[in-house]
């Protein structure tokens, strides 16, 4: 057990942060359209050139470093499908150049990245397909901070030989949990700054115990999600993946309500960055649900119920 970054992990994350300081962050997301952004192909290109997108070896059981990179990307509000590439594609023996989207087999309707993806990973009960749409998937107007496409009537075929559907689903859960952690930390940090600076009744509003307790519970929830997600990325265990996503989903509800509440009307404005992270959580949670209710999956993985 070692909860600290080793020197290699430290160096990788430092390099990712340096790249993001120039090509990521809330300012970049604003440039891309804010809560209604386009896909950041430029960022993907730079991440790929630096070798960050294939940091996990194909078929590797441990994808901790990839999860650490993903958490950093998500914390900088990257408009990228790097999560699927970093954590899910290593399970699949496929060759896709550009962005991928990921949906459940039964899914139709909005899905993140679908309009920008070169291929869709489609997870069924016991098979996984890689679908390369023959025409561009139409964009959906969405204002939750992600580029979204409308998935319907996907072509048949593209079944990936011997692709383990349960394993792919587990890694998708790890990716979603990790992305949620990054976004939640962004929302929490900006809220802690706000309540420390904002004064009412001649005192910082963050000195009121009601606010302190509310944020302390948020922080505990996010920390729990972070360490479960990292553990799941380390072991690849389906049970831990389901627990990590359950924790992240539950935490995201708390984070959404409380960070907005403590910002007052300031939190509604598009000039301010809070909504860029909080709205994203709603999309991540709905994608999590589309893979099966996380808490039910957790109970199922542990007891078969």
């Amino acid at each position, binding site marked *: *057990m*070692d*909860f*600290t*970054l*080793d020197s290699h*992990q430290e160096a990788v994350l430092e390099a990712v942060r340096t790249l993001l300081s120039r090509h990521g962050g809330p300012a970049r997301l604003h440039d891309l359209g804010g809560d209604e952004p386009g896909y950041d192909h430029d960022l993907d290109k730079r991440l790929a050139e630096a070798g960050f997108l294939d940091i996990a070896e194909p078929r590797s059981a441990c994808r*901790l470093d990839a999860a*650490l990179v993903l958490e950093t990307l998500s914390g900088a509000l990257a408009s990228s499908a790097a999560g699927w590439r970093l954590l899910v594609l290593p399970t699949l023996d496929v060759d896709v150049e550009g962005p991928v989207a990921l949906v459940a087999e039964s899914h139709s309707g909005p899905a993140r990245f679908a309009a920008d993806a070169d291929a869709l990973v489609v997870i069924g009960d016991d098979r996984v397909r890689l679908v390369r749409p023959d025409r561009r998937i139409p964009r959906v107007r969405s204002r939750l901070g992600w580029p979204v496409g409308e998935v319907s009537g996907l072509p048949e075929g593209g079944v990936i030989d011997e692709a383990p559907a349960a394993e792919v689903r587990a890694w998708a859960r790890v990716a979603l949990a990790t992305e949620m952690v990054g976004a939640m930390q962004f929302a929490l940090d900006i809220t*802690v700054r706000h*309540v*420390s600076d904002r004064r009412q009744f001649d*005192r*910082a509003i*963050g*000195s*009121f*115990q009601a*606010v*302190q*307790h509310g*944020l*302390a*519970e948020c*922080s*505990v929830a996010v*920390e*729990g*999600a972070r*360490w*479960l997600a*990292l*553990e799941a990325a*380390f*072991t690849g265990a389906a049970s*831990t993946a*389901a*627990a990590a996503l*359950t*924790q992240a989903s*539950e935490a995201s509800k708390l984070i959404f309500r409380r960070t907005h509440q403590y910002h007052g009307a300031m939190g509604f404005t598009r000039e301010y960055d809070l909504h860029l992270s909080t709205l994203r959580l709603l999309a991540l949670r709905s994608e999590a649900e589309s893979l099966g*209710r*996380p*808490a*039910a*999956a*957790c*109970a*199922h993985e*542990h*007891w078969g*119920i």
Partner: protein
Amino acid sequence: MEFDWTEEDLSYRSELRDFLAEELPGRWEGATAVLGSADNAEYSRRFAGLLAEKGWLTPHWPTEWGGTGATPWMLAVLGEELWSRGEPRGPQYMNVNWIGPSIMAHGTPEQCQRYLPPIAAGDVIWCQGFSEPEAGTDLASLRTRAVLDGDDYVVNGSKIWTSYGDIADHCYLLVRTDAQAERHLGISVLLMAMDSPGLVVRPIPGMVGEHSFTELFLTDVRIPVANRLGPENEGWSVVREALSFERVGAPRWARAAHVLDETVRDAMEQGRSIDPVTVEAVGVAKTACEAARMLCYRVIDERARDLPPSPHANVARVAMVQAERLVADACAALQGNEIMRYGSDSDLQMRKSLAAGVAAGTYEVQLNLVSRRHLRLPKN
């Protein structure tokens, strides 16, 4: 960063499990409804003796005092395995985890010689004389007064919520030795024999079941100056250090996870169908236990590296209380009307989850510490 157990830790855990499977009667958990009662204290005395023989009662102590040089991770494994089975060490738990280490750190050679070997042998029961009727969460406002008279302190006052007060041999007692000083600065620690004249112990019937509480009334109790632990008036820092020794406290999450597991398995064995809403509650409760586990491990990792205590311990404690409560909800949902049966899993878990947010520092105090030390939110 990595989250593997070492071979050594894994084999230690499996050796412990074999021992516990043999030593503890089937569902020991069910027998702990009255843990803290005289019956279970006797059991725990015998059990602690067995552990001591195997070197597992005080494995983390220095070899000089009967330790075996166990790592913090092995100690964590020991705590998990024992707590998940209802903590059969009973009151010995606090002896070995902080009273003993506190005596080691601040005791005179005579005090160490006198008090440590019986703890290491599992022969002795201690209680802690901390809370008072007017000093609970605000412990530093305690008023029990100790006045020097020759070679003795003469102590007057009362203590409350003292677990095991009726069966303990000694008490780790906090008293005020300087009534004029700023309140944190006038406190001392005295090691009091529980058969001291002038001490009256009154049991307080409780509904929690985990401990039977007592109240201690001290009237002109004479405690030798030689029984003071650490310097006079510096008891506050002595006790703070003692309580930070464990950092994260008892691994309550392990017990909660075990209760949840047993309750789910019972429901499955009895062929009861579990509705989707209950399945979700079970998944959420299991998740909370898992999150608390990782947050506790982070603290143990810090201890293993000899880092100073950090607010991560408070984060872990909040998560443990939440886990206990969510497990109580899940057990109630799983067992339905069985909660009406005294001693059922859901009945016991409801009672224990009540204590979880109060014992050893309230949930709200932990949240205060998380917000100030971890999030660095401003003070008023």
